[in-house]
């Protein structure tokens, strides 16, 4: 058994890629389409349950060249023959994902979405709108921990009710103070926490939510034609991020039940998270990294929903130009338009 998996077209033997619009596998040479169980039937993914040894190097099944990949890359392309290559050991044992959301958007669709999005960012430097830059978009299955958990706790604080009325020449303002407390619990399902150090946590959080209707049992076949990373953030580490998020969710939820007051300030809260269960999953993300003035700027597109987030630098001359243009426009309208109706 080889350590690198490449899926071959049953008809012509060329590489098979996963095709997001049809959610099938497509041969780029003979254009045949296959369902998940119509090819490579002999391959038993159960073997992935066992830990496989990490090798020093991996060899492309098509051309025999050495695959260039850093130690978290789990699916890639051979840089010589462009064949998709899935490194089995990086999906095996503790790295075997339970679920996957397959890509919904093709690379072309992702480019279009990004271009529309960046066009609206009028302060973005023009380098970010160049076609060569946009072409660098890559589809990556990003490792996520999906957590289920229970949260239980309370919030307490002080609320006021303000009532005012007029009597004679005086305005009376009556403020009633209340001590409030809300205790409750809730269950949360599949909260995603970024499991890759390489990918920026902030933007990974911003491209949420994913639609879990498309959540499938994991198969390496989905990886074919995309890049993939394996996790390097242990679940115990991710739990601390999860706890902070869930504490905020429940206290916000409890805060929402305080109504009928003019103001409310929460002075103390205590929320416990329990019954935490995690599953390791791969979620689809299109990634674009632009270098601008020696700094990397990351853009991410949710590979399922198309939501774009990114670190657009602001181009100061464009901002100044815009501010001056708005100033002049308002001034001209104020002076010439206003004089018409004065």
């Amino acid at each position: 058994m080889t350590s690198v998996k490449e899926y071959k077209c049953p008809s012509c033997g060329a590489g098979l890629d996963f095709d997001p619009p049809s959610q099938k596998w497509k041969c780029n040479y003979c254009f045949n389409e296959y369902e998940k169980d119509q090819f490579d039937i002999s391959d038993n993914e159960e073997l992935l349950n066992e830990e496989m040894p990490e090798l020093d190097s991996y060899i492309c099944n098509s051309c025999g060249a050495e695959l260039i990949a850093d130690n978290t890359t789990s699916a890639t392309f051979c840089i010589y023959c462009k064949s998709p290559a899935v490194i089995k050991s990086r999906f095996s044992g503790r790295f075997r994902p339970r679920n996957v959301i397959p890509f919904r958007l093709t690379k072309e669709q992702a480019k279009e979405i990004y271009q529309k999005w960046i066009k609206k960012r009028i302060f973005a430097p023009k380098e970010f709108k160049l076609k060569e830059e946009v072409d660098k978009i890559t589809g990556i299955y990003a490792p996520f921990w999906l957590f289920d958990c229970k949260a239980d706790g309370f919030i307490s604080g002080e609320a006021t009710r303000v009532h005012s009325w007029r009597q004679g020449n005086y305005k009376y303002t009556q403020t009633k103070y209340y001590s409030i407390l809300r205790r409750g619990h809730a269950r949360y399902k599949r909260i995603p926490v970024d499991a890759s150090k390489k990918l920026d946590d902030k933007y990974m959080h911003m491209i949420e939510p994913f639609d879990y209707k498309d959540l499938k049992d994991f198969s390496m076949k989905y990886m074919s034609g995309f890049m993939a990373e394996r996790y390097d953030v242990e679940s115990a580490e991710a739990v601390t991020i999860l706890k902070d998020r869930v504490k905020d969710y429940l206290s916000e939820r409890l805060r929402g039940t305080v109504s009928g007051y003019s103001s409310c300030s929460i002075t103390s809260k205590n929320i416990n998270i329990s019954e935490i269960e995690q599953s390791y999953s791969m979620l689809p993300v299109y990634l674009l990294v632009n270098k601008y003035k020696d700094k990397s700027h990351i853009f991410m597109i949710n590979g399922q929903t198309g939501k774009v987030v990114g670190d657009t630098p602001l181009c100061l001359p464009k901002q100044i130009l815009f501010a001056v243009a708005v100033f002049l426009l308002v001034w001209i309208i104020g002076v010439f338009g206003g004089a018409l109706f004065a």
Partner: protein
Amino acid sequence: MRKKSSISALILLSFFFISYISQALVFAESSKNVKDYLNYLTAEEIASLQSDIDSIKKSYKLDVVIVITDNTQGKSSRDFADDFYDYNGYGIGTRKSGLLMLVNMQNREIWISTCGDAIDIFTDNRISIMEDNVIRHLSNNDYYSACKTFIRDVKNYAYDGVPYGQYRSQSDTNITYADKVSRRIKSVSIYITALVISLGATLILSLSSKGKITINSGTYEEPGSFVLTETRDDYIRESTTRTRISESSGSRGGNVSSTHTGSSGRTHGGGGKKF
């Protein structure tokens, strides 16, 4: 001889009379501030009014003009009053402060035109009160009392000075579009508004360039799993404060001085009434 002397006495007397009249006429003509083209006022009356006016000029630095005419050369009372004041060199100081009362017998209309400092002292309200006082006498054809009343009111209001909260309101009808534009170009508030809007728009666009979080506390909550187990709302205390309601400034309208620009380009205030 007797007859001759009586005739000569008569001649002498009539000479005296004529010379007196003519002197009076000359005096009336020389009165700079009371122009009675219809001879409703006697020379003594004019002299008395003039001396009142002189004292106002001295103590309050305001020129006072009274014009009684039935020929406004086809102009409206307002324009005639403004032009009469501007083109006959009235007004004290560089601001040409003073006011003019026109009794226009052609239209049976009275118009008070103010200029310089008088615009601020004689607000629309005050002018209206003064005109009511004057009209009471004009309706009885008592022109001297009307003028006396006018001068008395001028003196009283000049003594009071500019009322608290007085402001001017430009109500120009004959001002050109170019004038309005040039006035707006000089207006600081337009520059400030434009600056605030342009900076605000730039800031909002700059901040929205990264994209935003679209999930909330309910996104990952299992539907129906939220249970509120305890709710307490305990009344602690209350406090009541009272503040005096300041008199509303809505009554500012009483202290407005409406202004317009005369044909000479000078700003005038004023108002008029029929009688």
